[in-house]
């Protein structure tokens, strides 16, 4: 992937908290990453690790209250999205940053036709007339591989299968040729065969349209198939970040390593017993003063209890937030 290019999206030190009746939930803690044009950044991590919240914080989609973006910068081009006013954000959402959500069954409005929902951003952001918008909508549906697109524009979401709905969601996200596409677990609700269809589609579209993509999932297999770079999140933080091959080939953070170990293989030898990550995910009720993974970590030592490790480079384009060095099996020197 092109290296020297300027990132389209540069997130620095993002912090998001939720205010609830039982106190604050620190869902995202100092998350920084960037996204280069045309790149596909995979984000993995277990449920509740803050993947969605991070992405939704970027473009102000979190409900506020209870959510509050505390800190950080989100540079999109030359604008800081966190400081932008609502109008600016609205002109970016859907137009320059597209979003695909996890659940295709509920993400579409059940009472509007698919065509209407697809044409909405086209007319708003691209100022297309009705006719032009319809033509473009049909084009988009064809692009995502829905047969008989012209007729199906008039259908309602419930007349589409899950896979087709997810494709419609993708079409909506792509409608205005965004520079960035954020896909939040877009295939989790789908079957493997349908998932394979969608993944294939995304690969194809990426080649055709060349946009930057953030792909959230907790399925490592999916990431392995399509990502260029991967971010691993745990407890509201990025714990490891590397190009895809490097990550799978040389995982540095104990969580990543454990995660890779839990998935049974499709080929080769069968382990007699699956490896598990014991314990519970952390409680995010305070800004972390220690490593969030320490309680479940097989390699933790006293420093992990005292300090929250920062991301340090551990290889080419590879960084991890851990005090433990897998190569040496001992602590990593700062």
């Amino acid at each position, binding site marked *: 992937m092109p290296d020297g290019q300027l990132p389209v999206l540069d997130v620095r030190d993002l912090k998001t908290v939720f205010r609830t009746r039982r106190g604050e939930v620190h869902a995202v803690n100092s998350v920084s990453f960037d996204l280069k044009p045309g790149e596909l950044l995979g984000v993995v991590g277990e449920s509740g690790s803050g993947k969605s919240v991070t992405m939704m914080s970027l473009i102000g989609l979190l409900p506020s209250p209870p959510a509050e973006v505390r800190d950080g910068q989100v540079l999109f081009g030359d604008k800081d999205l966190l400081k932008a006013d609502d109008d600016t954000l609205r002109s970016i959402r859907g137009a320059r940053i597209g979003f695909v*959500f996890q659940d295709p069954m509920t993400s579409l409005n*059940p009472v509007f036709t698919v065509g209407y929902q697809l044409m909405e951003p086209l007319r708003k952001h691209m100022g297309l007339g009705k006719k032009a918008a319809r033509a473009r909508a049909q084009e988009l549906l064809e692009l995502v591989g829905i047969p008989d697109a012209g007729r199906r524009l008039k259908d309602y979401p419930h007349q589409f299968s899950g896979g087709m709905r997810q494709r419609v969601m993708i079409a909506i996200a792509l409608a205005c040729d965004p520079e960035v596409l954020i896909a939040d677990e877009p295939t989790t609700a789908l079957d493997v065969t349908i998932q394979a269809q969608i993944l294939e589609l995304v690969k194809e579209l990426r080649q055709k349209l060349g946009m930057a993509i953030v792909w959230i999932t907790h399925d490592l297999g999916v990431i392995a198939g399509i990502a260029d770079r991967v971010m691993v999140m745990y407890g509201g933080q990025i714990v490891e970040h590397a190009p895809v091959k490097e990550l799978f080939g040389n995982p540095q953070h104990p969580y990543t390593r454990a995660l890779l170990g839990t998935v049974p293989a499709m080929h080769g030898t069968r382990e007699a017993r699956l490896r598990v990550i014991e314990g519970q995910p952390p409680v995010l009720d305070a800004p972390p003063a220690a490593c969030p993974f320490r309680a479940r970590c097989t390699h933790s030592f006293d420093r992990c209890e005292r300090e929250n490790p920062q991301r340090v480079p551990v290889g080419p384009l590879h960084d991890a937030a851990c005090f433990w060095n897998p190569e040496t099996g001992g602590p990593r020197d700062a």
Partner: protein
Amino acid sequence: MLTFTIRRLLLAIPTLLLISLVIFLLLELAPGDPMAQVPLTVPPEVKEKMRQALGLGEPVHIRYLKWIWQFFVIEPMNLIDAMFGTMLAEGQLRVISWQTRSPVMDIVAQRLPQTLWVVGVAYVVAVLIAIPIGVYSAYRQYSWFDQAGTFVTMVGFSVPPFFSGVLVIVIFSVNLGWFPSIYDTTHRVTDWDSFVVQLQQMIMPVMVLALQITSQISRFMRASMLDNLGQDYVRTARAKGMTENVVVLMHVLRNSMIPVVTVIALGIPSIFGGAIITEQVFKVNGIGQLLITAIQANDMPMVQTLTFIFAVLIVLFNLIADVLYGILDPRIRYD
């Protein structure tokens, strides 16, 4: 949808026949006598004669069948006659009110305009007020507007119209002298001035009725909006860059209206009968007042016919509500 409607209509026939029978038997059992209003000075033999003249001597089932025949065959024929000038029902005995000795349907037709004017307008006004209140209360849940709205609507819900009605009369008619306290049913709207007069006399009953209806519908609206505001598609709409107006007023409202529209439709039958007290207070003399005077005068044919008309309307609007549900919500398929 069509077969669903047809099936429900077919099912409605036995239901309605059963309802009519139940109503008839109920009224048959009810105590009271159409002669109650005849002064005590009238001797009993005379009363007995008058009773016979009303057909009270005949056995129950004959009277029921007669009523059924008159209601389902002769009255529709009369309607046709009235509309097309035909003579189908010439000379046939219609459902006759014991009290006024005139055809029940004619009186009902006479009462409809004021009921529709007052109660209908109140309903429309109430709905028009309730929806924005409900929408905004939900959108700003727990804001002062929401809290105040809850408070006012609950108070509105708990104030019986015999009180609020007299209260507005005392304020606006007696003390301020702005509006007439008694509704003039003979008033005809012909030009602007008479329209203004009509508005003046409608304003208080409409206010009182609308308060109650608004209270209820705005609660429904709020609850429904709250349900929908949390849905995923709202987030999708925002992610598309739609303005809050579009998000709330197009996406959420449209979905929230689905259950509310059916609630509204189900409330319509009450237009025809539910405003009894308000009608009494303002002397609107609509259908509700007709029912209550008929009950007081033991005017069985009138009570029977009116309650049955309400039953028909209830069944009909139940059906309409279901159909509306199906039309508004593309996910619902009746079949």
